């Protein structure tokens, strides 16, 4: 299952005042995997992303390819090869679609700016025809594609997607699932995926981590995890999936 160890989270804790958002969490992601994270709202999933990408400080250790990245600022982590998207699509309304992709290539890529790569990314996320358009004119799906495209322009080794299916209809979900598969299989990029749709997680991921109130309650094969009584009780019990 998967290749060499890529990302290791060890005994990580994050507190916001009296609230413990992430509690002594440990897991590892292997090269080439699609690693899923799920859990009810407020479980600490997005906080884990914010810790890995350096947006919050924390207790514990996070290492990427055996290099300790704890305490590094987000732009340094991006340059090392970890890219992410956000649950609420983040775009740059002052920039065009192409310029937004260029941000990732110019600032985040270890190989430096490459116009050919920007063109390839625009084609990959199906936004070539919109390259000159202001990002404010895009619909929700296109904004998600743009966010993924900008992240891909950094030439990441790990791409962390935060609820990419949120707010999407069935057709869009199929498109996004296809895109995630292509990123993983065609580009060879390891993916960490936060998602609420269990069907998406069981179809795409090889390992699934379930969180509740910042604590791991189960981690392993998605089919086994989803049938675990603790998971059903805390998460799936409220879900129709």
């Amino acid at each position, binding site marked *: 299952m998967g290749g060499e160890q890529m990302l290791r989270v060890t005994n990580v804790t994050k507190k916001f005042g009296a609230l413990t958002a992430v509690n002594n969490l440990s897991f590892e992601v292997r090269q080439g995997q699609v690693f899923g994270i799920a859990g009810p709202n407020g479980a600490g999933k997005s906080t884990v992303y914010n810790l890995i990408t350096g947006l919050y400080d924390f207790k514990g250790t996070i290492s990427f390819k055996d290099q300790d990245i704890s305490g590094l600022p987000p732009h340094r982590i991006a340059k090392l090869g970890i890219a992410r998207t956000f649950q609420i699509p983040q*775009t740059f309304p002052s920039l065009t679609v192409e310029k937004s992709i260029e*941000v990732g290539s110019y*600032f985040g890529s270890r190989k430096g700016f490459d116009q050919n790569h920007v063109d390839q990314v625009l084609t990959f996320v199906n936004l070539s025809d919109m390259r000159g358009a202001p990002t404010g004119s895009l619909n929700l799906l296109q904004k998600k594609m743009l966010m993924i495209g*900008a992240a891909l322009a*950094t030439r990441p080794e790990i791409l962390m997607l935060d609820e990419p299916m949120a707010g999407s209809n069935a057709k869009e979900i199929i498109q996004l699932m296809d895109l995630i598969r292509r990123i993983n299989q065609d580009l060879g990029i390891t993916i960490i995926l936060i998602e609420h749709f269990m069907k998406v997680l069981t179809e795409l991921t090889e390992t699934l981590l379930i969180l509740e109130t910042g604590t791991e309650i189960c981690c392993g094969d998605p089919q086994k995890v989803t049938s675990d009584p603790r998971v059903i009780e805390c998460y799936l019990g409220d879900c129709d999936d």
Partner: protein
Amino acid sequence: MDHKRITFLLALIWTIVAVLPLFFGGTNFIMHILIMCLIWSVVASCWDLIMGFAGIFSFGQVAFFVMGAYASAIISAQFSIPPIFAVFVAGGITAAIGILVGLPCLKLKGAYIALVTFAVHMILEPVLKGDIGRAMGTGGSRGLLTIEPMHIFGYTFTTASPVPYFYLMLLVAVLCSVIILVVIKSHWGTAFLALKDSQEFATCLGVSAFKYKLRVFALTSFLTGMMGGFYAHYVGMLSTRMLGIDLFVTLMVILVIGGVGKFPGAIIGAFITIAVNELLSPLGPYRPITMGAMVVILVLVLPDGIVGLFERLFSKKQHGMTH
């Protein structure tokens, strides 16, 4: 607005401004106003760069201008440095202070940055008037009354004959506007806009907020401080009255009229605001009220300023041509 249109607009503005002395060169009063327009156009453009493009609500622009003015005047007087070099040293000093002010602002957002930078503005007056200021040579409450005039290669610029200084300021303003244009259209400008729109996403794509925010503080405070120096050596006297609310409000009006984040709107805004301000002078105490009313109307009618109006008209025209 794309690079070509901004370059065209800048070329048009500076060409029109360059020929104005042909019509008004004999009237020192008008030439004095035009020199002020050139100075404020650069200061307002710097403010627009940091606030409109980089999204940093810095309210310290007037303070940096006054610091640069005093620094240049004191350096040229106490160290016998020619004013043409003193203005650049003053720019360097204000850039260093700009970085010092910028450092705590990196941890802050929005209104808190405005408060910190405005605090610098508030602190400056008592510092310049007090014992520290007097020890540095600010002249305390009296200010500086005999500042060495600008001289280059033996030629001394005087207020009695303002046309040469107008062209010197025009050259400086053109160079500053080119620097600002290059910055806006370079990866610096892209980083500023990305950080303004979504700092979290921008940093996660590799943009260093620390580096680019400090750079914009350093650049804008350098150019603003340098313009303060040119102002000091032109008017020949300085006092802390410049730190009053008038200049601050004038710069704000310039930005509103030109369009925030709409370079070169600040340059157009400077000429309109200063000219209208002078034309309204017969109204006496009703002038600020009239200016205030104009600003309110302009904000409602032209929320993106004059350049925003140009953009809308141009995009409509282009849209019409494609259909």
